[in-house]
């Protein structure tokens, strides 16, 4: 099926929040902290504008609790006198003219009595830097399997490595934006978001309003990648506060720089590996420490850390594993959800480390992976028995065959010594990603979904899942039409409006097709049951039955309902991090071929092959697009994207100096799917959105290692870093 909203996007007719027709409204703007940490001693309003024309909101205007609630109440909506990161919101302004609102921002001076900021997450803070708990540790987690200390002591070879990754900005092409207005006594929020019910959850305590008094509607969303998971709650709250105070509609649209410097990013990380292996390359012990920069507020950091440590040992079997995870408070912009959610950091380290081990053993890195790759019946670090029937070696073999790995490798060995300044290399990464929420997370979400049969026999899916480019509207249409035997044109997907649709959970974590899609199928079945027609009956009969039901029940609604039920046999011990972390894993292998220019230290990716098991592929074009887009973000995280920091502020908040790839910077990304259906996912689907990003960076860096004979350990591997690495020798 073709992307349902595709034509309206291609022709420019799709209306995003900033495209909605609106009259008599105010433009909102956000005054932010200039300092990373300190007490606000004064706010000076300059005389360049007439302040009587402005609506001004500060923390005292917040009717309820001053917090953007998701996991904790720690992050203020507006700083109440003390700031903890640069660009923390302090005041809100609104004016009928956008130009005047922007001018006013330049007229306000927030004066901060600066305290020393904690800016390095890698070292434990001195006493003057402590601001969270005893030692700025936001969260500690641990996984223990076997006896690592003993096993390391008995290992003939121990290989150590330290791997670091930088912050990454989402750069969704549509910036954050919200519209807020009062409809009677209901506060209506419309805007760009992944999770309408997260916005409701944040607004209720802050505005002291009930769910009935807050209506959140998602508008077509121009990219999310996790950046519109939790952050839109902040923008919505700000727009809402301005609308409540002014009693006028308020539009709050971030410009690119504000969006880049002030919103969440991917957590920077430092991961240490100490690995015991025998001479044949068999893993004996893995000791791993994952440290992440959480930034100034909690956001979703504990969950990101959790996903990171669960995946940190890679897709290998090892009897002795110790993984310690620690997320640190710093006075940086809060880090948050970003496609992969901790797993890209974990896999950058472990998949880079596997090549380092292979190098030490003088062994083929593919062979090292083959020997240790988890087989059915073996267990992950949390003790989860893998028994999904997926042929992981087949995935690796397919990626090697498609990329012509062996032949290229031999060609490079011949070619590299002959060329004056170009070095080619080919590298691979094998990896996995748990789909859906971790452990008992899906049970706690308690997702619900309705499928409504209308009097004319047409059907509408009511859910809070959102379309942000990944194809949710198309996939849900397909699933409902297949299940009911309907023409897709007779299926509609309701606008995500919290006053109309049930809470089917957030659109995150590669859960939508697999988990919520399964609810679509089950709600369709329930609709058939209620309409009195056999499940699986031809569409014409289902339609007839729906029409007949309405004749017999005039004025009533015919709703097929489904509520999440966990697959049988899943057990997770949240206290000890033992058990079945995920119902299903997607498995994949990437192969990257690169060319390094020793004159410029530029790394060019010449070829990229991705083989993925995402269960049943529901829509080939959409699935391929997910993989290619994820890989592109992973390649550019590895090579291009660097947040430059100065005193806690991102200095390069523009697309001219924060570089994301153009078409010219990327090779064609060649994708193949190997399908191992998952019986509890919709039509056998598993998660797809995050998996492809996870292994891209290590594949690229392993190729650089093959090309240069050096072992890079840090990304982004900018030309400057590569130059230092090649000049200084191994590190």
């Amino acid at each position, binding site marked *: 099926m*073709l*992307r349902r*909203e*595709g*034509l309206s*996007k*291609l*022709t*420019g*007719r*799709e*209306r*995003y929040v*900033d*495209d909605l*027709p609106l009259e008599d409204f105010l433009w909102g703007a956000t005054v932010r902290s200039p300092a990373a940490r300190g007490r606000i001693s004064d706010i000076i309003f300059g005389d360049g504008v007439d302040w009587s024309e402005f609506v001004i909101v500060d923390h005292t205007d917040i009717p309820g609790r001053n917090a953007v609630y998701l996991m904790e109440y720690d992050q203020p909506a507006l700083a109440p006198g003390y700031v903890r990161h640069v660009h923390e919101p302090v005041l809100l302004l609104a004016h009928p003219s956008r*130009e005047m609102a922007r001018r006013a921002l330049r007229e306000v001076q927030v004066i901060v009595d600066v305290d020393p900021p904690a800016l390095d997450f890698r070292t434990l803070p001195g006493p003057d830097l402590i601001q969270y708990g005893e030692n700025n540790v936001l969260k500690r987690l641990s996984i223990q399997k076997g006896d690592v200390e003993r096993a390391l002591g008995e290992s003939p070879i121990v290989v150590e490595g330290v791997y670091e990754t930088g912050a990454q900005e*989402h*750069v*969704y*092409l*549509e910036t954050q934006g919200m519209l807020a207005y009062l409809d009677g006594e209901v506060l209506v929020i419309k805007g760009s978001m992944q999770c309408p019910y997260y916005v409701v959850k944040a607004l209720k305590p802050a505005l002291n309003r009930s769910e009935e008094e807050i209506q959140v509607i998602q508008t*077509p*969303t*121009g*990219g*999310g*990648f996790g950046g519109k998971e939790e952050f839109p709650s902040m923008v919505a709250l700000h727009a809402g506060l301005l609308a409540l105070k002014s009693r006028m509609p308020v539009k709050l649209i971030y*410009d*690119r720089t504000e969006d880049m410097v002030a919103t969440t990013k991917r957590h920077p990380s430092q991961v240490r590996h100490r690995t015991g292996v025998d001479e044949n390359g068999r893993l004996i012990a893995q000791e791993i420490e994952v440290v992440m920069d959480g930034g100034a507020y909690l956001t979703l950091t504990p969950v990101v850390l959790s996903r990171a440590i669960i995946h940190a040992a890679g897709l290998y079997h090892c009897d002795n594993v110790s993984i310690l995870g620690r997320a640190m408070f710093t006075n940086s912009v809060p880090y948050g959800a970003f496609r992969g959610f901790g797993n890209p950091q974990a896999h950058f380290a472990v998949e880079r480390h596997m090549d380092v081990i292979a190098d030490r053993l003088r062994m083929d890195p593919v062979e090292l992976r083959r020997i240790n790759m988890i087989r059915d019946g073996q267990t992950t670090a949390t003790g989860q028995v893998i028994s999904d029937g997926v042929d992981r070696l087949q995935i690796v073999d397919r990626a090697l065959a498609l990329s012509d790995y062996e032949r290229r490798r031999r060609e490079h060995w011949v070619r590299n010594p002959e060329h004056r300044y170009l070095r080619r290399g080919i590298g691979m990464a094998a990896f996995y990603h748990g789909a859906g929420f971790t452990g008992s997370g899906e049970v706690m979400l308690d997702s619900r979904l309705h499928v409504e049969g209308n009097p004319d026999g047409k059907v509408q899916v009511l859910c809070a899942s959102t379309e*942000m*480019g*990944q*194809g949710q509207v198309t996939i849900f249409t397909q699933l409902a039409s297949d299940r009911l035997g309907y023409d897709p044109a007779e299926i509609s997907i309701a606008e995500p409006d919290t006053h109309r649709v049930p809470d089917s959970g957030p659109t995150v974590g590669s859960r939508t097709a697999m988990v919520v899609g399964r609810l679509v199928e089950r709600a369709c079945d329930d609709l058939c049951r209620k309409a009195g027609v056999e499940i699986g009956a031809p569409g014409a009969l289902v339609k007839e039955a729906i029409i007949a039901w309405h004749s017999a029940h005039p004025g009533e609604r015919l709703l097929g309902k489904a509520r999440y039920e966990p697959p049988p046999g899943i057990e997770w011990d949240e206290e000890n991090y033992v058990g079945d972390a995920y119902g299903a894993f997607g498995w994949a292998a990437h192969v990257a071929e690169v060319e390094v220019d020793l004159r410029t230290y530029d790394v060019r990716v010449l070829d990229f092959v991705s083989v993925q098991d995402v269960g049943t592929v529901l829509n080939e*074009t*959409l699935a*391929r*697009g997910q993989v*290619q*887009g*994820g*890989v*592109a*973000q992973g390649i550019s995280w590895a090579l291009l994207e660097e947040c430059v920091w100065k005193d806690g502020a991102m200095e390069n908040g*523009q*697309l*001219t100096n924060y570089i*994301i790839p*153009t*078409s*010219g*910077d*990327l090779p*064609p*990304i060649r994708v193949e799917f190997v399908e191992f259906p998952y019986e509890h996912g919709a039509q056998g689907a598993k998660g797809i959105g995050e998996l492809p990003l996870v292994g891209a960076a290590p594949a690229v860096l392993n190729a650089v290692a093959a090309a240069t004979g050096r072992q890079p350990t840090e990304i982004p591997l900018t030309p400057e870093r590569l130059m230092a690495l090649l000049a200084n020798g191994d590190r």
Partner: protein
Amino acid sequence: MSDGRDDPIRISFTLNGEPTTVEVSPSERLLDLLRYRLGLTGTKEGCAEGECGACTVYLDGLPVDSCLVPAYQVRGRLVETIESLDPEGMAHYHARGTTQCGACTPGVVMTAEWILRHRDRLETHTVRELMAGNLCRCTGYDGIIEGIEGALEDREAG
């Protein structure tokens, strides 16, 4: 108090084939004029500094970033936006995954259509090179390039 620098300027130009007359302020961008005053919201703002191409329109037939064009400069000229394109021509883009989130898409399609109308450029450049002025964060560009290649083959055959 006015020294005339902020006085509105009256301009006439051709917008999507229609004669158009408006008053603009000296600092007004073509992008804002189109989006907020003329209701042509198909043209998107992505970066406001000529880097991403989401705001691409044709000015006298050439693709330009409308965020960098002062509105008064279009006086007497031809401006064409995404709204002027024939939806019939979108089939290949639709089928091959050219659009995902859609925020870069109108700009991408404007550049793509310009390539289709200027095939001689393909003698010296690849589609991949010609598309390097439009940033997309969703597709990894393969869906865009394949969509254009499909349209090229189709219109050659037609």
